[in-house]
């Protein structure tokens, strides 16, 4: 898909995010806005998937896990915009009996979601497990996952990293949303991740870097990682992003991690984001 077209979709996704969060006065807009470009490219250009035939098993198609489940608004928007469920359902986000739970879940059977997430650090294990099942099934598809940078403070991530390399799980492509911010402040001040690239390399992973707000960089890096499936090494992409990207007053701070905009702020945000596909 053309970069310009992807940018238009991402703009609509960002409108969905701020409207969903403002609609229930809760949720996580910052990280969601930061990952809008990535998830748009992944679902509209990179992944082999069919939204009209969703199955929990995901056989013969690429599978995605959102490990940092709190950025559910961006995932729900991208899933709806790519046809997994009606776009109007975005208006039920976080409301009683909705399939769009605060954090992604499977129990209400929302098409597109195969694993609950929210309690951090579990998604890499899930992704590697599914990648190994694909190998056993002779399924050449790829498993993608997305993680917050703060989430890497969870020990289970590194258990999974060690395992993925030891078992040569080369059909998993993990992406880190490297925005440098978490609830209590900058990641560097809360608990520094040190040299992230060297850490992953030391754990035996093939490390890529990409600009999370540049469609060309996203496409090229994901294509490069995909091209190396089969080389015995799991892959991780350190994706530089800006929390709150696209809404000026939400950028440059950790303060919009989990805070909803008020009506005036919402109006200001929507004024900065072009409506391209029609609001829900």
């Amino acid at each position, binding site marked *: 898909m053309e970069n310009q077209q992807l940018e238009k979709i991402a703009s609509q996704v960002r409108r969905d995010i701020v409207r969903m969060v403002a609609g229930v006065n809760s949720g996580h807009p910052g990280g969601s806005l930061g990952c809008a470009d990535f998830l748009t490219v992944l679902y509209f250009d990179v992944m082999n998937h069919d939204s009209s035939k969703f199955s*929990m098993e995901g056989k013969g198609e690429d599978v995605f896990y959102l490990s940092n489940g709190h950025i559910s608004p961006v995932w729900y928007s991208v899933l709806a915009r790519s046809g997994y469920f009606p776009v109007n359902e975005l208006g039920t986000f976080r409301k009683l009996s909705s399939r769009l739970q605060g954090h992604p879940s499977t129990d209400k059977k929302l098409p597109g979601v195969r694993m609950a997430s929210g309690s951090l650090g579990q998604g890499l294990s899930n992704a590697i497990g*599914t990648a190994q099942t694909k190998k056993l099934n002779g399924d050449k598809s790829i498993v993608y996952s997305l993680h917050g940078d703060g989430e890497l403070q969870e020990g289970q991530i590194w258990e999974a990293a060690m395992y993925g390399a030891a078992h040569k799980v080369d059909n998993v492509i993990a992406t880190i949303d490297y925005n440098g911010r978490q609830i209590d402040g900058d990641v560097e001040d809360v608990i520094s991740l040190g040299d992230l690239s060297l850490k992953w390399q030391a754990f035996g992973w093939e490390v890529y870097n990409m600009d999370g707000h540049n469609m060309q960089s996203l496409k090229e890096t994901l294509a490069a990682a995909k091209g190396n499936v089969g080389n015995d090494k799991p892959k991780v992409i350190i994706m530089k992003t800006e929390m709150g990207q696209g809404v000026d007053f939400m950028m440059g701070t950790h303060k919009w991690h989990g805070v909803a905009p008020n009506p005036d702020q919402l109006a200001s945000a929507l004024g900065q984001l072009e409506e391209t596909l029609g609001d829900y």
Partner: protein
Amino acid sequence: MIEFEVLGKKDTRSGFGEGLSELGKKNNQVVALCADLTGSLKMDAFQKENPERFFQVGIAEANMIGLAAGMAVGGKIPYTGTFANFSTGRVYDQIRQSVAYSNKNVKICASHAGLTLGEDGATHQILEDIGMMKMLPNMTVIVPADFNQTKQATIAIAEHVGPVYLRFGRPSVPIFVKEDAKFVIGKADKLINGTDVTIVACGHLVWKAIEAAKELEAQGISAEVINMHTIKPFDENAVLDSVAKTRCVVTAEEHMLNGGLGDSVAQLLSRNNPLPQEYIGVNDKFGESGTPDELMKKYGLESENIVEAAKKVIQRKS
């Protein structure tokens, strides 16, 4: 005269190992994961017979549970193996989110449960696992009584789609379940008919309940014995039908009283037919080092304790 044929003596974990090996031969969707305790869990046969379906995880139980949940996506039936403590308490949140809430077809197989793990002491002797697991929606909880039943349960749970917690142990205990018995999840086994008191037991305490019933018979008391091998879903009718006749109950388990089998029975009775109940189990204490026999005696989990509890509960009948 109560007669019970003893078919030998073996550890229940070996029943798991044999069951897993047999299952591996007939169901190629079954995969197994182990966290550095392959020998202790008796998973070596499956590993040897199915190297491509066996995954050594190392000492990383949280990752093991997450991997197993991921492997279930795509149709595999993962069996995880480690000690009961590391199968539950250490990874409760991983089980809660990735297995139970996500309703994944993962079988969490837990050995060395309870005091009979012995000399390693309280760090490894989990007595809270049944409670933790039965509280999780979607989770089935099974505590088989002997080698044969553990083997049968290991095979049977592959046919049940959904999360299962299977609890077994380390010591050699008498085998009394027939080799060709059919294991039905959620259907309790009535082992002895009686009229004066109902004894509901699970796991290693089932044999002790049988011995207690023999002693009670010698003292002129008729005890009914139920092997409640499935804690969840709970066979309510088995208990209600029995107490309708006996009017009192003793529960016996190698577990904490809080959250255990006794709690399930008490909840059932209080809702349907409030009757006197006495409990055999560990009451709000950690275990300690010692031989399995010494520990069972010190913590009051012997057949004589069941006999005393039975006599006491009969006295309480109005």
